[in-house]
């Protein structure tokens, strides 16, 4: 062991946001759990998509129905993979609180917010890319598998691509929302429970109560929850409408509502991160 340190090798280094982004990228890929989660996400998308494609098909269906059949096969796994995105999103930050890593992170980035935003960007982009590639590959596979049953998607249809990309965007936004929840709650178990509760449990509960007490406004509230609104992003050509007092959001409107959730929770996470002791 020696006690020699070299002053010159580190002298050119300085803190930059690009560096913080790279740091978060290294963190994401050097944890086995994140790598596994992304692999599970990709595998689920493909496997469920293939299963659905093998078991559907309709000879002589109108083109809009044909588009929808391929889309549903490609995005059928989202009901499951959204759980993976939520859990991973929470863990990306709560794992740092659980292990104490957050103290190293915030010592390196003492202004704190750049560290949070770098996490959001890196995790959001990686989730989007993994989801988009999986969904696109699944759509090609599904189209091939569905061809014998007479289903041919029109690839020149903008709404079709919008829905495919919308599926990946939905997963990325939901993951980022879960990350914000993890940053607020700072505990893996609590964060995962809160994120899944918001995405899985709350919509059903609100809708059920809304139906039971016959309150349309309450049923409408449920449509503005993250998953109900966000799901419109990968519904084929969903229009924005109000029928019989029940709101139905369009693709873009649903997406914007989810973005709203993400922004509000991120603002809360930022304020708390800046204020709280670590």
């Amino acid at each position, binding site marked *: *062991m*020696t*006690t*020699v*340190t*070299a*002053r010159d*090798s*580190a*002298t*050119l*280094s*300085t*803190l*930059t946001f*690009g*560096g*913080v982004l*790279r*740091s*978060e990228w*290294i*963190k994401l890929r*050097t*944890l*086995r*759990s994140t790598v596994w989660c992304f692999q599970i996400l990709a595998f689920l998308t493909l496997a469920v998509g293939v299963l659905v494609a093998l078991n559907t098909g309709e000879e002589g269906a109108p083109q809009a129905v044909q588009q929808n059949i391929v889309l549903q096969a490609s995005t059928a796994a989202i009901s499951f993979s959204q759980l993976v995105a939520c859990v991973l999103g929470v863990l990306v930050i709560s*794992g*740092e609180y659980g*292990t*104490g*890593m*957050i*103290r*190293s*992170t*915030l*010592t*390196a*980035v*003492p*202004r704190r917010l750049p560290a949070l935003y770098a996490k959001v960007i890196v995790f959001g982009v990686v989730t989007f890319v993994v989801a988009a590639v999986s969904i696109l590959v699944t759509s090609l596979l599904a189209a091939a598998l569905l061809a014998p049953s007479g289903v041919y998607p029109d690839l020149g249809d903008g709404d079709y691509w919008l829905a495919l990309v919308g599926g990946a965007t939905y997963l990325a936004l939901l993951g980022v929302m879960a990350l914000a929840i993890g940053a607020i709650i700072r505990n893996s178990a609590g964060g995962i429970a809160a994120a899944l509760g918001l995405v899985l449990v709350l919509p059903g509960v609100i809708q059920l109560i809304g139906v039971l007490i016959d309150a349309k406004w309450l049923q409408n509230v449920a449509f503005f929850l993250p998953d109900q609104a966000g799901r419109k992003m990968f519904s084929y050509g969903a229009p924005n409408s109000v029928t019989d007092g029940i709101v139905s959001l369009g693709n873009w409107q649903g997406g914007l509502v989810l973005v709203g959730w993400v922004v509000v929770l991120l603002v809360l996470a930022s304020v708390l991160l800046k*204020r709280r*002791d*670590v």
Partner: protein
Amino acid sequence: MIEAQGLTKRYGAKTAVDGITFSVKPGMVTGFLGPNGAGKSTTMRMIVGLDRPTAGSVTVNGKPYAEHRSPLREVGVLLDAKAVHTGRSALGHLLAIGATHNIKRSRVDEVIALTGLDSVARKRVGGFSLGMGQRLGIATALLGDPATLILDEPVNGLDPEGVIWVRQLARHLASEGRTVFLSSHLMSEMAQTADHIIVLGKGKVIADSPVADIIALATGTSVRVRTPDASRLTELMRTDAVTVTSAEPSLLEVNGLTAPQIGELAARSGIVLHELTPAVGSLEDAYLSLTQDVVEYHAGGTPAGASASPTPSTPTEDVR
């Protein structure tokens, strides 16, 4: 250079750090001593901005830590060995932390070699021993080649070889003109490593002096005398300036007389002495007497503001 001004941290009703003012100078090793719960770690966390002070301020190299453009190059900090994600390898951890400051791969390899982590660098940190975790924490602190090092209990969990290594490292870093601020509960360790010591008790600075002065506090104050004729010797020594205590019939603890004086007194009266030992002051004794004072003081219920701590030559001592 670390400068704290009236630094205070309260958690609810509990005051962890109570308006402390001190400075840690470059070119020497400054020890930070205090019993558990004295506020050492809280103070160190406030220095690097992890905890927000309730009142007061602290600067590093002239600025609050967070305002430096490249914080890791200003301050390297080991707060506890567990500030690492257990699922990541030591190499991955250092690369990730280094990346924030665009620190080159070569520097990461350098600190790995420097801290003796070569053989375990690619292993996951979760399987590390306490000592290995400590080395990784020190490697992280050294990553930015900082001008100031803050090490909280750096020898915790290290084997004897590691303890010597940390001691040499701290001395070497200080000799390069860096500011080295380290806390330890091992007083003997401090005596060998530190040049200057700040003692914290119940959130207040109770001493801020060179090591030699602190040791002097406990030196030459008492003499142990073992004699079969204890009661007669006690009678002979009794004056206003001398106090004698006795733990067992033939053993006396004498304050106020030197060993030669006691020996001569005994010889004149023909008293047999079996032992005559001046108590050698140690940092440990000094530390215990300092902190005990604080503890007793508070236990006695006297208002804290009236504290008159036995602090020699402390220009920056808290005087509230």
